[in-house]
């Protein structure tokens, strides 16, 4: 009884954590499902068919490919723009800082539906109603990923020890050398984290994308479409893969930073 009282909060916390994983178990389970009918969504039997034939519905794989493509380009764009802005905000002083901070903050606080519909209003107003598609999605994704990149890189940069850079310059490193040999490697984990966040935000976005996509279909839009008329089990294969890949990346990063911390110590 005493033991229970002492560990009650931890047990409750672990229960909440288990709860967050329940749908993931279902996704993994359903990726091995052999459905009796496409219309009834339940586990009927075990098969490897879905894993061996991931592209049974070519529409799914082309939507997936498009999402990856948009995700990579949006990540590159938002990471570059956002990192530059983070350096400006942490390392430079200029008029309009608070306006800039507000401008960065607002897209994270605005409801997606409002952001998406404003962007659509702009595109239609500017006469691009017929050109909605890949490029308008990409523009939108860079826009909403940008703020998250700035915030992530900014916090890494702000928490950084200046002394290492001072030391480099005391030892006659040029500003350029100092930047590439000291500053950049120290900020890099933050930039990498921001890039991963951007990719997952872009890859997973539905509401903004759906408004600005025209006839183009991304992976979430494909899932939305088939949700009404029967979901192919391969969707769960993709869901499982996304989970596994992100776990590998995150745990790998964690182990790597532990190893480095030990090497430094």
């Amino acid at each position: 009884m005493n033991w229970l009282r002492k560990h009650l909060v931890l047990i409750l916390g672990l229960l909440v954590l288990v709860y967050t994983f329940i749908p993931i178990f279902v996704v993994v389970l359903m990726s091995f499902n052999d459905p009796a009918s496409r219309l009834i969504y339940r586990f009927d039997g075990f098969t490897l068919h879905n894993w061996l034939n991931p592209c049974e519905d070519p529409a799914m794989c082309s939507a997936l490919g498009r999402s990856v493509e948009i995700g990579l380009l949006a990540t590159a764009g938002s990471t570059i723009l956002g990192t530059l802005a983070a350096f400006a905000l942490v390392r430079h002083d200029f008029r309009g800082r608070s306006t800039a901070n507000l401008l960065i903050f607002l897209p994270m606080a605005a409801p997606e539906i409002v952001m998406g519909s404003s962007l659509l209003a702009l595109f239609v107003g500017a006469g691009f109603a017929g050109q909605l598609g890949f490029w308008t999605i990409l523009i939108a994704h860079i826009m909403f990923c940008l703020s998250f990149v700035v915030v992530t890189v900014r916090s890494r940069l702000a928490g950084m020890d200046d002394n290492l850079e001072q030391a480099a310059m005391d030892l006659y490193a040029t500003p350029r050398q100092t930047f590439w040999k000291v500053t950049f490697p120290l900020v890099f984990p933050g930039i990498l984290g921001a890039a991963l966040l951007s990719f997952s935000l872009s890859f997973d976005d539905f509401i903004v994308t759906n408004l600005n996509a025209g006839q183009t279909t991304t992976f979430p839009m494909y899932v939305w479409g088939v949700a009404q008329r029967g979901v192919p089990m391969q969707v769960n294969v993709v869901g499982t893969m996304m989970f596994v890949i992100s776990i590998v990346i995150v745990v790998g990063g964690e182990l790597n930073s532990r190893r480095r911390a030990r090497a430094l110590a």
Partner: protein
Amino acid sequence: MASAAGTAPLADVDMSTVSGRKRGKTGYLLLLPAAIWLGVFFVIPFYSLVATSLFDPSGSDSRGYDMTYHVANYWHVFQDYRGPLLRSLWYGAIATAFCLVLGYVLAYAIAFKAGRWKNLMLVLVIAPFFTSFLVRTLSWKLILADDGFVVNTLQAVHVLGSDGRLLATPVAVVAGLTYNFLPFMVLPLFASIDKIDHRLIEAASDLYANPIKGFFKVTWPLSLPGVVSGTLLTFIPAAGDYINAQLLGSPNQRMVGSVIQSLFTDANNYPAAGALSMILMIIIVAMVLVYVRRAGTEELL
């Protein structure tokens, strides 16, 4: 890593004054691309939305709209879609309350009880949410299905009637919202709780506060910044979401986001869609301002 990226255009960053912030043009130049992008694709669109919401509703997207400052659009859409609008705010608020309870327990456990497993637990909090939002929500559809384990159990203990169901009810929609937006609550709460000096809590118990009183007098007030930003970061997307309502609910649980979406893409009624979007934005901003003032904290993130 650094040498591989050595050709990137970052090289002219002036590091001559590392301590303290440097004044000069470089700051503007670094900020400019991001500021332009957000200006053109976030701020200007907002003006387009305001303009669209005031267009003459008799136009169409093919013939074009006339700007008539038709403020009546707002009144009309409010009349027509009051149900989904209020429902969205209501579902968002209930889901936020559930998230606060679940999220607080989890964040507290990670910050104070996880010890050396702290980082691992934090990673595990985010990990499930890397799987596609829609795929996750679909799996809730399976979990809450009519002949599923959850419904059968609830029927067996007579919480639900023998023909009771969860899918296509507000319960399923709120459950989906709670689940999907939980990390937005946990992370800010954790950041706040993790900063609390544990000695303050010990001091409270030394002074004979029982754990519950100690919690409400010490821990809770000190975690308020996290509570405020967590509830905002959960409520805003939850109220605007329509994926959960559409996949787990029925037309009776339709939320405002779905109305806006279909007014834009199916009905092509841009002025009404714009006005409804504006109303949602105005309500949310008003609520946020009142809430932040009442909570007495300006610290949002």
